[in-house]
C-alpha cells in the first residue's frame, strides 16, 4: 500500500465513508460538510473517484437497491481503505501536534514582534 500522503479529494471521500456506508449523493453532501463547503464534488468527478477507489481496493460496493426506479449503490471502506485512512489521520495528527507545540514555544518580544 502506498505511503504517499492522500490527495484531498481521496482523503475527503474516504473520510465520508469512515463511519458508515453511503450512496453517491450522500457522499457529495458529506464531503461538502467535512470540508466546510470548500470542496464540492460534482457527479462526474465523484463517479470517477469512486471507480478509482474501488479499483484500488480502498472502497467496495456495499449494497445495491432500486430507489424510484433507479439503481442506487452504496459504498463502504474496505479493510485496506480503513488502514490507509487511519495512517493518513495519524500523519495529519502528528503534523498538527508538532505545529501546535512549536507555536506554543513562540514568545513575542517586548516590541510586539515575534522572537
Amino acid at each position: 500500500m502506498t505511503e504517499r500522503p492522500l490527495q484531498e479529494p481521496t482523503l475527503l471521500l474516504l473520510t465520508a465513508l469512515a463511519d458508515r456506508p453511503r450512496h453517491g449523493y450522500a457522499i457529495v453532501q458529506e464531503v461538502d460538510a467535512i470540508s466546510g463547503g470548500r470542496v464540492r464534488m460534482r457527479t462526474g468527478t465523484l463517479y470517477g473517484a469512486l471507480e478509482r477507489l474501488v479499483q484500488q481496493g480502498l472502497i467496495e460496493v456495499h449494497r445495491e437497491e432500486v430507489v424510484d426506479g433507479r439503481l442506487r449503490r452504496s459504498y463502504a471502506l474496505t479493510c485496506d481503505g480503513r488502514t490507509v485512512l487511519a495512517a493518513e489521520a495519524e500523519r495529519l495528527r502528528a503534523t498538527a501536534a508538532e505545529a501546535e507545540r512549536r507555536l506554543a514555544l513562540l514568545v513575542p518580544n517586548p516590541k510586539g514582534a515575534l522572537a
Partner: protein
Amino acid sequence: MTSTDGGRTARLLRLYPAAYRQAHGDEIAAIHAEATAGAGPVGRLREDADVAAHALRVRLRVTSTDPAGRLLAAAAPYAVAGSAAWAALAVVRIAAESRGGWGGAAVPLLDPARLLLLIAGAATAVAAVCAAAGRWRSGRALFLAGAVALLVHHLAALDLYVNGALRVPAVVAVALVVLGCPPDLPPTGRRDRAATAAVATAMFVPGAAMYAGVPGLPGADRGWWALVVLAAALFAVLRQEGAAARFRAAGVLVAVALHLGRVAAEAYAYDLAVVAAVLCGAAALAAVTVRRFRTRTGAAAEDRAVRR
C-alpha cells in the same frame, strides 16, 4: 425529477459509451438527479458539464483509473512548470526590450503582438504560482486562458520571431495535458507542488540570468537549460521505486517532449532533441545505478545485522 430533467439526464448519459452506460448509467443518473434537484441554472450547467467531461474521459480512456489518465496527472505539474518558466522568460525579455534593455533599441510595449504575448506569459506564470500553492483549479483556468491568448497570437500570425503556425501544435498539446489531468487526481499533493515550484524556479532564474548576460554564464540558452532541469527531475523521480515513481518519470518525459515541441520551429530544434535524448538517457542510467547501489548496500547492511 421533471420529464424535462429526465430528458436532459438521458441526453447526457448518451455521451457515455453504450457498455459503460448500461453498467453505470442508472447510478450516474441518480446522483445527477439528486445533485441538480433545486439547483439554479448555473449549478445545473456545472453538473451537466462535469458529467459530459467525465463521459468524454471515459470515451478517450483518460479517467483516473486509466494509465493514460494517471500519466496526464503525473505530467501536469511538469508541463505547467516548464510552460511557466518559458512564459516568464518571454515576459522578462519583452519588458526589457521595451526599455531598450539587453543591448537593443527600445521597442514599444503597446505593440498588439507584444501585449498579447505579455498577457499570455503573465497568465501562465501566475498559473504556476497557483498550482504550486495548491490552487489547482484556479491555476488550470489561468493556464488555459494563457494558452488561448498564445493561440490567438500565433494564429493571427503576429509572432515576433518565427513562423507562429509551427508553434500552434505545441500550445495545443500542453493545454491538452493540463486539461486532461483527471479532476479527482489534482496535482495538489506536497510532492507535486514542490515539483512545480522547483522546476519552474530552476528553469527561470538561471535562464533569466543567461538572457541578461550575467558574467560567467553563457548567453541566451536556446532551450537547453530547461532540458538540464528536466533531466535532473527525471533522475530525482527514477531514484524512487514503485508504480507512482514510474508514472512521474513518464510525466517528466512528457514535459521533455512538450519542451521540444515548443522549440520545434527553431533552427536548432534537432540539436536540442539530441541533447534531450543524451541528458534523459544519462539521468535514467544514473538513477538506476544509484538504486542498484542502494539495494546492494542495504542488503549488505542486512547481512551484517543478521551475522551479529
